[in-house]
């Protein structure tokens, strides 16, 4: 089952630190789901750089969901 990181309500950079720790442990093809209060543009830059695949959605309740898959 995919790991879910609920980083809502945390002060920056804690959400960033949590997700970086989680994705560091992923094996190729494995993924995590990240829940946030807002779109994490700086994180996307790092995911792009390190070739992670990701998809972001804004739910109707305003929560941002990001699915990240390790390269």
């Amino acid at each position, binding site marked *: 089952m995919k790991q879910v990181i609920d980083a809502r*309500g*945390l002060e*920056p*950079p804690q959400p*960033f630190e949590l997700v970086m720790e989680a994705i560091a442990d992923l094996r190729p093809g494995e993924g995590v789901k990240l829940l946030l*209060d807002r779109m994490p543009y700086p994180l*996307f830059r*790092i995911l792009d750089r390190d070739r992670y695949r990701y998809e*972001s*959605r804004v739910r109707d309740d305003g929560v941002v969901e990001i699915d990240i898959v390790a390269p």
Partner: protein
Amino acid sequence: MTTTADLSLSYEAAPTFSTPLRFFLTAPLFGALAGVVLLFVPDLLGSRWTPGALALTHLIAVGFMLNIMFGALFQILPVVAGAAIPNARIVAGIVHVGLATGVASLTWGLGAGSPPFLNAAVVLLGITFGVFLVAAGYGLRRTPIAQATPRDLRFALLGFGIAATLGMALAMILSGGLSLPLATVVKLHVGWAWLGGSGLLLAATSWVVVPMFQITPNYPARLTRYWALLTCAALVAWSAAVLAGFSLLEFILAIALAALSGAFAITTLRLQTRSRRSVPDNTTRAFQLAMSCMIAGLLCIVAAHRFDHDVWPVLAGILILHGGFVTAIVGMLYKIVPFLAWLHLSQAGMKAPNMKKLQPDGPIRKHLIAHAVALAVLLIAALSGSTLVVRTAGVLVMLEFGLLFANLMRVLGAYRIARSA
């Protein structure tokens, strides 16, 4: 459910740490210069119209506030709105130099009544605003208009553009190059600079930064959806009333604008009471002071309409500029600068120190205390008219901005050490 597709292009050009930092480190120098003016021209608080008061106001509003606001926008646009300013380094270089030389020329021109310096300021600040607004507008062109922050940032840029155009017209009126009714243009310039530019930018930033860093619930959706729209509409209607000379309508719309500003300040204070922090941190304290000063400043504006005395506009100016905007900006800076240092270190693949190590609480508290004391002494100076108190306020203002500069340099020092480790 809304899917956000291909965002990579919009943050490809995220700025280097030095891009916003050069503005953040220049701003306190203009703040300290405001203290020097108070020290050596102690009779300037007698009225908002004295040359010294005009120079002082622009050292704070343009030299300090706008430097930080422009610097922050280079960062906020890509990080918060996903909108990158093209060729950010080159644009930042032009805007930074243009703003610094333009504000120096403007304040000297206003203080000394020198037409050549005023004309130079028109050219320098005209180029600066033109370059920045075109570049920022280009960056924002693809961001979603439906989201409150990117939409309100657009409004703020438009407001700054109008305020700057009116300011340049004023400088040309004062230098004898343009013939327009001075009092009307001043009124419009103040309204648009205060609410159309700075107020809208503060609100658009607060929608994101207050919940994010002060761990509060989000602002009510109705407020973020309609506040900027209503404020812009009221500003346009108020401007029309000013131009048409409908003084009663102008007064009613001024009260409406004050009520909108008050609603923003009160909502922010109420959100802070619901923060998940058990003890308010320095930024929360700064915002509490800022919003309280905004409300007190609004009451002084209402009093200025009711009672014809020079002290009310001066008190309003001190409370709104120094107490409101400067305090809120400083509160945000103490979150944004260490966060950026941390982010740039992390993005470079380095082990970033804890945020508290990058920016310890103790020196921030010292600075905020110095700032609050300077504010109180400035208010006493305006009320008493005592030369000694004005000079004391000048020394305190120099001290507070010196402490801010030292604290920002401390973050830069910690960043450099971490980078070289």
